[in-house]
């Protein structure tokens, strides 16, 4: 295993925690990958903001139906039991607390559960999509992310410096180095790569990593 998990491996790890029959929304980009790695025997029902519940994976290239897409505008397929609905009903599912889990990407996650994932500041074009609704609606809001930015700065921080997506909303983070819960305004380390010491992990994390009981090894297959 390399020094950190690949994006695919982070997605795999997060997928192991999705319960059978759970209703789950996967954010655009990396989170979309999670669907591929559900453990055998488990079948979550995936929701997409643009009005589909219970869709299946991407069709082969050339067989796309561009009226059958997910929130990332990628083509998906039907499964038995799929339902279509309009955007207000779709966000009733989100805001009304009907989803079991939302899995989102992040620029920063703070130890108080704040999430920043929509804007890198006043330059450029801001785009929020459904993230601000998802963070307040799903029963569990989970983040998957690299542990640090490309230039090595912590993405898990004491307080977010970037514009917030939501306040106190994230309860678990799967990173390229660790699995971390957010409880009582603190990061609680649950799993870390075996090759890394707690001190090394702390050094690339922007707020204190608490430990309750044992910290398990973060074990992910080669993918």
């Amino acid at each position, binding site marked *: 295993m390399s020094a950190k998990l690949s994006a695919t491996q982070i997605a795999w790890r997060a997928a192991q925690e999705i319960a059978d029959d759970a209703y789950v929304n996967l954010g655009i980009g990396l989170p979309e990958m999670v669907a591929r790695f559900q453990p055998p025997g488990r079948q979550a*029902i995936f929701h997409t903001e643009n009005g589909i519940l219970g869709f299946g994976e991407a069709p082969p290239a050339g067989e796309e139906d561009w009226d059958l897409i997910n929130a990332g505008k990628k083509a998906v397929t039907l499964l038995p*039991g799929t*339902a279509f609905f309009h955007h207000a009903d779709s966000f009733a599912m989100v805001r*009304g607390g009907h989803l079991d889990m939302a899995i989102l990407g992040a620029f920063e996650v703070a130890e108080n559960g704040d999430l920043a994932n929509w804007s890198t500041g006043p330059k450029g074009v801001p785009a929020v999509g459904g993230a601000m609704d998802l963070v307040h609606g799903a029963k569990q809001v989970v983040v998957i992310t690299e542990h640090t930015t490309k230039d090595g700065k912590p993405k898990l921080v004491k307080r977010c410096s970037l514009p917030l997506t939501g306040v106190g909303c994230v309860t678990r983070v799967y990173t390229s180095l660790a699995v971390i819960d957010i409880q009582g305004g603190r990061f609680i380390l649950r799993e870390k790569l075996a090759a890394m010491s707690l001190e090394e992990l702390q050094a690339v994390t922007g707020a204190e990593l608490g430990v309750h009981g044992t910290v398990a090894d973060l074990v992910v297959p080669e993918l």
Partner: protein
Amino acid sequence: MNKTLPTLQDAVAGITDGATIMIGGFGGSGAPIEMVHALIDRFLQTGAPKNLTVVNNNAGNGHVGLAAMIEQGMVAKLICSFPRSADPRVFTERYLAGKIELELVPQGTLAERIRAGGAGIPAFYTPASFGTELAEGKPVEEFDGRSYVRERWLKADFALVKAHLGDTMGNLTFNKAARNFNPLMCMAATTTIVQVSQVVEPGTIDPEHVVTPGIFVQAVVEVANPAQEEDLNRANAHYPEVAA
């Protein structure tokens, strides 16, 4: 995933004393009579559930369904828009005797409050009831020169709903105007229990024709040939049956 339950007894087994229950239907159309009768059976056998708050458009008709529940003394409070019917005596007598509480809500506000409960909207403004006694004590605000009343969402512990087809994942269709409050109540309850005329396999209902997606449904039970309240009342039925 399989949300079906084998019997009506299973369907109503978890309903607790003091619960808030939304019961679908507009008058008799869309009213889950068999499920309500199963709940009455349980009450007669065990003494529970009682002290219920019921949300329904009406207050029952004759001596079956919701009227029979009220007649048994299971209902402490009713939230409805129109507590009148061809034969409203069961409710009327208890109400005038002070034995049941009534929260009267304009019908559109009732529908919107239930939808808001299901959609995570804690409050909204409506023109309905502005300047009337049904708005007393409620915040009022002006938008674009018109006055509106603020109303709160309405949620429930349980929804008892009648649908037409239901697949094992809880996707539902309804029959004609029996749709009414049923899809909204599915959204607004912690536990939504649906009696359907037929349970079908996932994929049987065209995804374009699903009215209530399964995410809003916790349990489905088949009642193959459901009675119509109107027919029962024309036959002067009572539940439970009384000796002639």
